[in-house]
């Protein structure tokens, strides 16, 4: 019966990444809007139901239970934090046979999750980002760093990857210190980091990242600041003298330059910030989910995973962001398609990971500016 489909979204609307979540969710919402404007899905409407996973495995399990067993969604976009995704998937996803496409769970742990080929992600693993960041720093001639990471799977995984790659490349990690989230004060941790003037902060911007950066600036002990994707957010620079963080280096999953990205960036509008952290990945995840459902031909969960692989990877006619009606026509015609998204070509490997692209950003005049690919 052609009556549309419902997909779910799990994200940390509350908790440590509560300020990062809304723009990510907006990416998924945009897909829904475009799909419905361009004729809908399976002859009906595409619906999106969100649930709060609080960046917490246990809460996410309950959220997934609701989406999967109460709202009967076909697939899930999410969750964001890696523990959240694992909790949500093991809680109800596995038994329900539900496909998860996470836009933001970047910790390496997801690669090895036993998932019956149901869990995918549109962001590269931190293992990659860590390596890229290390390369970038070494290329810039920074030979020693002090690292502080937020004590969770994201921060820890990232820091480990960074340290390994950086030392292998000949750099010195003078200190590697974890910190707890959401504290008022990090001067003590910073005191343990002064062994190098180049401070790497792997944390969430609105949680500990902002505080650490500000206190680091105030201490005057550091000259260069470096951050990971979690740090890229408007919250990062509030209350910090812009001049003192000029030149802050950051990385995040990004998009290759190209037609797909240009089209996607064109969506930037009043209610939507196209280049917000993980917004492109969320857009891609939702778009892929919709394509897979259309391809699968019904709102059932069966066969969705296989359909997803088909629409995501070559061979096939290229589909770019926003080209929903074109895609539907092709699918109806039985033509193979291959989505190329805002965040890259998105060909899933056996573990459901994508080969990512990491871009460099820097702060100029109080704003993040993209500097292009890191290779």
């Amino acid at each position: 019966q052609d009556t549309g489909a419902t997909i779910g979204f799990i994200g940390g609307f509350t908790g440590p990444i509560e300020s990062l979540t809304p723009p990510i969710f907006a990416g998924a919402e945009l897909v829904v809007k475009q799909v419905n404007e361009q004729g809908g899905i399976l002859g009906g409407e595409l619906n999106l139901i969100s649930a709060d996973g609080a960046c917490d495995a246990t809460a996410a399990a309950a959220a997934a239970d609701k989406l999967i067993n109460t709202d009967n969604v076909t697939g899930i976009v999410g969750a964001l934090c890696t523990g959240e995704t694992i909790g949500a998937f093991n809680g109800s996803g596995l038994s329900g046979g539900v496909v998860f496409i996470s836009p933001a769970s970047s910790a390496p742990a997801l690669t090895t999750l036993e998932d019956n080929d149901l869990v995918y992600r549109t962001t590269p693993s931190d293992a990659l980002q860590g390596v890229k960041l290390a390369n970038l720093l070494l290329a810039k001639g920074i030979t020693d760093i002090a690292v502080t990471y937020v004590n969770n799977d994201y921060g820890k995984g990232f820091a480990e990857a960074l340290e390994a790659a950086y030392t292998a490349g000949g750099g010195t990690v003078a200190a590697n210190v974890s910190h707890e989230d959401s504290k008022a004060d990090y001067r003590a941790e910073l005191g343990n980091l002064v062994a190098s003037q180049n401070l790497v902060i792997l944390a969430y911007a609105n949680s500990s990242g902002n505080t650490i950066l500000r206190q680091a600036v105030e201490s005057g002990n550091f000259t260069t600041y470096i951050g990971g994707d979690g740090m890229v957010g408007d919250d990062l620079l509030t209350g910090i003298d812009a001049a003192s963080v000029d030149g802050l280096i950051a990385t995040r999953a990004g998009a290759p330059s190209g037609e797909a990205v240009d089209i996607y960036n064109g969506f930037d509008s009043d209610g939507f910030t196209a280049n917000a952290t993980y917004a492109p990945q969320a857009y891609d995840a939702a778009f892929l989910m919709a394509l897979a459902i259309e391809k699968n031909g019904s709102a059932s969960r069966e066969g969705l995973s296989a359909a997803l692989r088909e629409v995501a990877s070559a061979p096939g006619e290229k589909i770019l962001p926003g080209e929903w009606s074109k895609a539907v026509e092709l699918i109806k015609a039985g033509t193979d398609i291959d989505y190329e998204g805002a965040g890259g070509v998105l060909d899933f490997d056996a573990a459901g990971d994508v080969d990512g692209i990491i871009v460099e950003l820097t702060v100029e005049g109080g704003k993040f500016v993209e500097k292009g690919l890191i290779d």
Partner: protein
Amino acid sequence: MTEFIFFLNQVVISGAVLGCIYALGAVGITLIFGILRFAHFAHSELMTSGAFFAFLLAGLFASWGIVTPIPTGFVVLPLAMALTALLALGIDKGFYAPLRKRGAKPVILLIASIGVTLMVQGLIRLFFGAGSYSFFENESKEIFRIDTSFLGSTRPLVMTEPQVLMIVVTIISVLALHLFLTRSRLGKAMRAMADNADLAQVSGINTALVVRVTWIVAGALACMAGTMLALDVTLKPDLAFNIIIPIFAAAIVGGLGQAYGAIAGGLLIGFAESLAVFNWTMVLRPLNGVLPDWLQLPNTLALVPTEYKLTVAFVILVVVLLVRPTGIFKGASS
């Protein structure tokens, strides 16, 4: 010398600032506990709301084009304190007074205050979202870097303007509170009520008035604490909630109901946190020159790893309580 200045920055100044943050919050908690005999968990939300009031007022001032030499957030403090006092009164009237009237036990009031915490937190997020704000969006934060090269140090002593203000404000507010409680008629009535509420009533003391004054003072103190904290850090909906447990620890270590105890407890915990994770290698590094190769100092030589920082505060807390079961300054108990 550089090492010594580093130690001052890292342990003395940062311990003092952290201690003052805890102490400012703990003063209000200790006051409410002394008089109303319950652990007012929602004090954190009074602090956060107070900071938001100050933030709004500061924004208003800025939009009127008023420029002040010290941070606007600090200038508008009296107004914000009045607003927070009103809020505190309202909360008491709406939630605690009915319970007290029915003779509820302290733990019931404690749980009610947890309920209030959740509600206020929900409301703050409703109006301000989850993001963070800064008082220094329109003005810059002054950072004092005291050059210490005359001492042969390459590092300056660093303090920011809000930190200096905070230390001053903490000292003044504790002194003022102490004078108020020991000198003024109302203050004495508050102490009388803390000592023996039934007898206070029998003496004709208007206990309802005393309770009101308590909330006014507590609200004002909370606003001050929250604003000072927000000036030093950033303003977020969970600003004070995140540190309410160490604040309680400070109040308890100091002895509940004791104004000076709050300072003592706050500083003790502040210094303990700073000192426990302090990396001694930074200070002892010159020794590396004289030490043999096999005894070179490791990169980090701290009493405990940083991830156990908070743990240290609590170990101290437990130890202090074991030695002095009612805190440093003999405190009250419900």
